[in-house]
Structures are given as C-alpha cells and as structure tokens.
C-alpha cells in the first residue's frame, strides 16, 4: 500500500460505523498485499524476432513511432565461435531483423524481448521525488503523467533502460503490462500477438495461472539479479551474455 492509499483509506477508519463494508474490504486487501501480482515469463528459445510485439505495443499504447521510444523491444544476440558477442536492436526490432552474412562462424544466436521488469523493489519508485511513479496493488509499476514533474531521475535509476521520455507528455513512459487491458481480464497486447507464445502472462501466485506453472516447473532467470530489484519478468533459457 502506498502512502497516498493509506491516507485515502484512513478516512474509512474514521467513518467506520457508517462504512463497514469498506473497512472489511480494506482488511481483506491489506492481508492480500504482496500476493496476487502480475508477472510475465519470456521463453527466449521460442522468440523468432518477428517484431510483432513491438509493432502491436506501439499501436496499442500510442508510443511515438520514432526509433528512440519503446515500451518493449527485441535484442538479437550473436555469439561467434571465438567468443565475440554482437548485440543489435535495429529500430528496437520494429521491422524484424535482417538476415546477416557474418565474416566468421556463429556459435549461437537468439532473440531477447525486453520490457519493463515491473520490479518488486523498483528503483524508479524509490527515487521519484513526488511519488508520481508508484506500484499498484497488483504489482504493476505505473507513472502518473499528471503528477510527474519531469525530472528524469527514474530514467537514471532504471537499470534496464525500460523508460523513455515521451516527447508529447514530457513525462517518462514505460510498459504497464497494458494495464488498461489486464484490468478487464484481457492479455497485454504483446502477449496476445506473439505467434510463438514466447510471452506468457498471468498472476505469479495463482495456481491456475500459466506464469505460476512456469515458475514452478522450469529454471528461470531475471535480468541483473545482483541489483536486488526483484523483477517480475522472468526469462527461460537465458544466456549468460544477456544484460
């Protein structure tokens, strides 16, 4: 619960005799805190780098079409026999990836879709001077565009480069797991359009959720775990070169 929520809910305590239901609700919600959160698993071995998710995301969320602004993007890793690593993300993978004819032999190559990691201990939430970036009860980190002062501290604090500065609202913007969709029971648009089912979405502690099943069945990794941000985006089959 954020401070703002707490103060909002405090008035229900004061008016307890008149608002029993709200009070009960509050108690239920308080005890459910830390649970019932959304998460995503990305199965790297399935991603073909088609860019469908990037295009759909830009369309759905009014992300500027320029190649400097992404809520989600795809990186291609090429690891050569001699150990050299080549990484690219032309236009964030918006137009897919071109076939390349490298000068030397490739050992392995794979695509890594990236997005906001919806960290449990989000550095962006911690550093926002006015609390315009906050975490919802269901674990999604959102930006209040009408409250943000535009200092850009959150962009500096994000270890994943998941935030960009929206040229129209003049505030930072980032992936919200398509919050407007998931609250209606729909899937985030990138999950919906992925032809490979490389993105799996759901509640991380609901036994019926596909994410829960993945978390319990496979070895998974998160990005930059040493920073203790506790991401809720998990990667399956992730190579050690991915950062």
């Amino acid at each position, binding site marked *: 619960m954020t401070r703002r929520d707490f103060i909002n809910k405090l008035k229900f305590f004061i008016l307890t005799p008149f608002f029993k239901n709200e009070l009960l609700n509050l108690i239920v919600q308080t005890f459910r805190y830390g649970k019932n959160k959304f998460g995503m698993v990305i199965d790297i071995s399935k991603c073909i780098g088609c860019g469908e998710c990037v295009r759909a995301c830009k369309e759905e969320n009014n992300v500027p079409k*320029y190649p400097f602004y992404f809520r989600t993007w795809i990186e291609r890793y090429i690891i050569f026999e001699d150990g050299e690593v080549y990484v690219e993300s032309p236009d964030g993978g918006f137009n897919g990836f071109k076939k390349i004819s490298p000068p030397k032999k490739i050992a392995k190559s794979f695509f890594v879709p990236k997005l906001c990691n919806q960290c449990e201990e989000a550095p962006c939430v911690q550093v926002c001077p006015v609390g315009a970036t906050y975490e919802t009860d269901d674990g999604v980190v959102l930006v209040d565009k009408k409250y943000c002062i535009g200092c850009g501290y959150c962009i500096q604090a994000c270890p994943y480069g998941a935030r960009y500065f929206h040229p129209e609202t003049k505030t930072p913007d980032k992936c919200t797991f398509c919050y407007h969709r998931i609250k209606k029971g729909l899937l985030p648009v990138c999950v919906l359009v992925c032809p490979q089912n490389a993105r799996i979405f759901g509640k991380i502690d609901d036994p019926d959720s596909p994410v829960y099943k993945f978390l319990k069945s496979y070895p998974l990794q998160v990005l930059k775990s040493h920073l203790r941000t506790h991401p809720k985006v998990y990667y399956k089959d992730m190579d050690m070169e991915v*950062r």
Partner: protein
Amino acid sequence: MEMEHLYEVLRSIEGFIYPNEIELRWSILIVLYPYVTGLVAGAFILASLEKVFEIRDVRPTYRLSLLTALAFLICAPLPLVFHITHPFRGFEIFLTPHLSSAMAVFGFVYIWYLMAILLIEIWLEYRKEIIEFSKINKGIKGFIYKILTLGVKEINEEIEDFDKRFGKFIAIIGIPSAILLHGYVGFIFGSVKANPWWSSVIMPVIFLFSAMVSGIALVIFIYMVLNYLKGKEPSIPCLDAMAKYLLYSIIIDFSLEMLDLVQRIYEAEEFFDMFQILIKGKLFISLFIFQILIGAILPILFLGYIRIFGSSDSAKKFTYFLVSVMVLIGIFATRWNVVIGGQLFSKSLRGLTIYKLGLIGREGIYASMGLLFLPFLILLFLIWLLPPYEKERRV
C-alpha cells in the same frame, strides 16, 4: 528538430545501447546544479574558518564568503527548475514529497540551509549596520534596510553580545548543514545503483571535498577581482591562509578521487571494460587533462611550491589567481565527468552514446552561461546592499 538531433546521435552510437538510451536525459543544467551547490557549501565552510575556528587571517573574506554563498545558493535550484519539464508542478516536491527519494529530501535540506543557517547568520552579522544604514539612507535603499531591520530601531550591547554568541552557534550548526547540503548532492548520484559510474559510497565524500576546493577557489577569485576593480591591494596574509586551505582541500579531494579510481581499476568488476573505453576515449580530455591535471596536479604543484619555497607578493597574487581559475575549471570538469560521463555508456555495458551540447534552447550553452553568470549579478547587488569590507562598514 529534436528528432533530427536524435537521428544524428543514433548514427554516432558505438557498440550496442538500449534503444531508449539514445536520448541522454540529464544535460549541462544538471552539471551546473552540483557545481553551483558545491560553490555554496565551499564558500560557507571558508566563512566558518573565521567564525568557528577563529582563523583571523581570513577575516577580510568572512562577509564576502557569506554573501557569495547566499548569491549562489539563491541560484542553486534554478538549473533544476529549468531542467524539469513541468516546472509548475515542481513545488510538489515540498508539498507531497516522496520521502524515499534522495531528490525529494534535498528540497528540505536546501530550505533548511537557506532559511535556518545562511540568512540568519548573515542577518546577525549585519544587524547593527542594517539599523544604522536604515537611519541614514533614504529612498529605495533606505526602505530595503528598514524592512531588513524587522522593526528593531535600537540595539544595545547586551543584544549585540547575544547576537555574537547566537551567530557563532548558527555557524557551528552551519558546518554540518553545509556538509549535509553537498554530501547530499553526492548521494543523489552515489545512490543510483543502476549506474556503476555513479554508484559509490565514497561519492558524497568526494563531492564534499571538491565543494570545499571550488568554494575556496571561488572566494579567492572574487576577492582578487573585487580588489582589482576597486584598485586596492588584497591582503596577502588572507590570501596565503586561503591558499593554504585550498591546497589541503585539493590534496584530500585528489587523494579520494584517485582512491576511487584505483579501487575501480583494481576490482575490475563487470563494468571495467566499459570503464576503460570511457576514460581512454570520450572522457580522456575532461578527466585527465581538465579534472586531474589542471584541476588538481598543477594547483598542488604551484601552491606547494609557494608554501615550501615562498615567493614575492606579486608572484603569489598571480599564482593564486591562476590557481583559482584553474581549480574552478577543474571542478566544473569533475561535475561534467560525473553527470555526463555517467550517461555516456549504456547500462547494457556494451556501448556508448554521445552528448551534443547545443548553443541555444533551454538546455543550451547560452542558457547555462546565463545561469552561471546570474549569481555574480546577485552578488554585486548584495555587495551594494551589504558592504563586506572593513573600511566601508564604518558609518
């Protein structure tokens, strides 16, 4: 226009960077912010040498240091206000601060320092004269003095004595406050764990000592320029004393910076490959030439030579002036290397972006130079209102 600029940056990228990192968010204005704040803290600590530690040699610059600190402190938040894209919501930092944010708490540290320390100390120092000035001056100037007296028309020895003791008390709590002010700015950068160039426990301490270095250099610079403009001779014992403390501060600051550098090189963590490319490439001139050579090694050599072997007064004056300018440039480079240097590499640690400094616009060179020049104008006004020299103080 903006997009063309970004396309140009896109073409200059080396290696791989996250696509959202093409736009470098914190510009020269954020370089100015710790620079100006550091000058404030440094100038104030210099003033405290006289007030708290009773080092009489620096007495001629006591008032000047306080006024300098005030002039720069008034301007310290301006780069931030210029930089944030919704400046009219900026006051929310004070009204609804998010207390886990280093930046939010800075607002309160700033207000505390301005209202509880600096203004009170200056007012107590000048109180007697303000009352006298309010009686002999007419017109706007007299009116300003009347407001500044806060309605007190007479002052006796008892009150004067109290003012002196209370002023000393304020100066004493002012030292940790000044340390807090600038150490805190260092913490704003040093606490960003996402950025290995910034994330360092020693960052606030380095900021603090570099603040003292730049603040003392600034007061030497202003003191000498003011004397030159008035056609007067600056006090050599005073300059010697300031130069002595400048030398000590530079040595401590430089040692800490080198400790940080050596530690990073010796530990050679994940960030090390990028670190090497950065300091040998894009930051080479601003780091090795400006920050280390011009900002530290040469000043240490020059000031050290004078301290050990002595020299004539005119040579001293020339050297002190030269060193003060070199140090001011060097510390600016230090801030540049922290703020801009920390954004030049990708957090993927696989590539570099570039920073193109424009001439015009809110974050261009002209605006920045204006912001850097403004405190000097404010200082001139303050000197006009509250003369800092012994001779002029006698009414």
